[in-house]
């Protein structure tokens, strides 16, 4: 059980680090990156809680583990949408400024 504690602390620090990046970085891509870092921290906490729930021969509680898999896929979808929006925005504004001048 104690083995999960370092990872629990790790997840707490990851959330703080990601939050810091989200607040301080002005560039959207860095914000997206920071969001993914917070996400990793949160998912790691799921992992710690799953590990603590090890029972009946399973190394961990399978329910939170399955939730992480779903969460990872959803987070990827969010990242993909944000990246696509950002790239389109950059394309448009660059073209826009060229047209204006």
């Amino acid at each position, binding site marked *: 059980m104690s083995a999960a504690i370092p990872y629990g602390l790790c997840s707490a620090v990851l959330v703080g680090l990601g939050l810091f990046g989200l607040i301080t970085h002005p560039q959207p891509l860095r914000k997206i990156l920071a969001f993914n*870092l917070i996400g990793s921290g949160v998912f790691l906490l799921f992992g710690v809680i799953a590990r603590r729930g090890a029972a009946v021969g399973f190394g961990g509680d399978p*329910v939170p583990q399955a939730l992480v898999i779903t969460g990872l896929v959803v987070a*990827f979808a969010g990242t993909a949408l944000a*990246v696509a929006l950002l790239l389109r925005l950059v394309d448009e504004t660059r073209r826009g400024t060229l047209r204006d001048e």
Partner: protein
Amino acid sequence: MALAFDIVLVLLILGVATWTISARDTFAAVVGFIGFGLVLALAWVCLAAPDVALTEAAIGSGLTGGLLVGASARLRRTETTSGETPSISLRLSAGVVCTFISAGLAAIVLELPGKAPTLAPQVAANLAMIGLDNPVTAVLMAYRAVDTLLEVVVLLLVLGGIWSLAPDHLWGGSPGSRHLAGPDGVLPFVAQLLVPVGILVGIHIFWIGSVAPGGEFQGATILAAMWILATMAGLVDMPAVSRRWLRLLLVAGSAVFFAVGFAGFAMAGAFLAYPEAYAKLLILIIEIPLTLSIAATLALLVAGPPERAPQE
């Protein structure tokens, strides 16, 4: 000894994460993030969650990393213009707030109840009824199948959202630019070697998901990666997004999922319920098209909105 390993691994994770946040260059930060995902996958192994480790490596590090690398390469040209840096006072106050939040979370983690609640016994008790040996797959495909179903819809929806970002005249066209295979290209050569192997590995990982770590999401990610590799090498071209067969391929998995779900009303008395004798078979019937649909969706999510006008 094991604890020492855990601590070293955690320090490594935090080191790479700090680099990802603090690196001046966005591209460097993204590369750091990919490394971060791989080390994190190791942590998942240590937490006795090999299914998650595979997913983290494949999706969290691989696909997300690939997506971000592509984006940062495209943004590199514009990065110099947006070189504003946040003020010291903002960074300082953000630092204080975030430290406070981390400390609070850490305190809660340390204070978690000594006897952890778990659903593992309930998961185990019903495993035989659905004929699966991998408990994680059982949660994803049976106990909480509705989450998985909605999640696949989320993926499709985001793909539609990304397509909607195309300019009007490109709607229905193909994503990305056409990659042509050069005569002395290394990539086409490797792709010819690697893609068949990768497809085999992807199918294998999906197939063993019922008994061992693996499953449709992990397998589908590998299949998607192979499609992307083949496209980059110029072996195949991304299809126009208006193609009917493509739309059918994308929707096939969730359509079968819904169909079996409705059949559950008649066969087992509830939406998404499986009759005990056929549970394993029905889950397989869902999983095969689902894997293909997820693979296609993931590959197209990375490919982005249509960039070439549809050919008449």
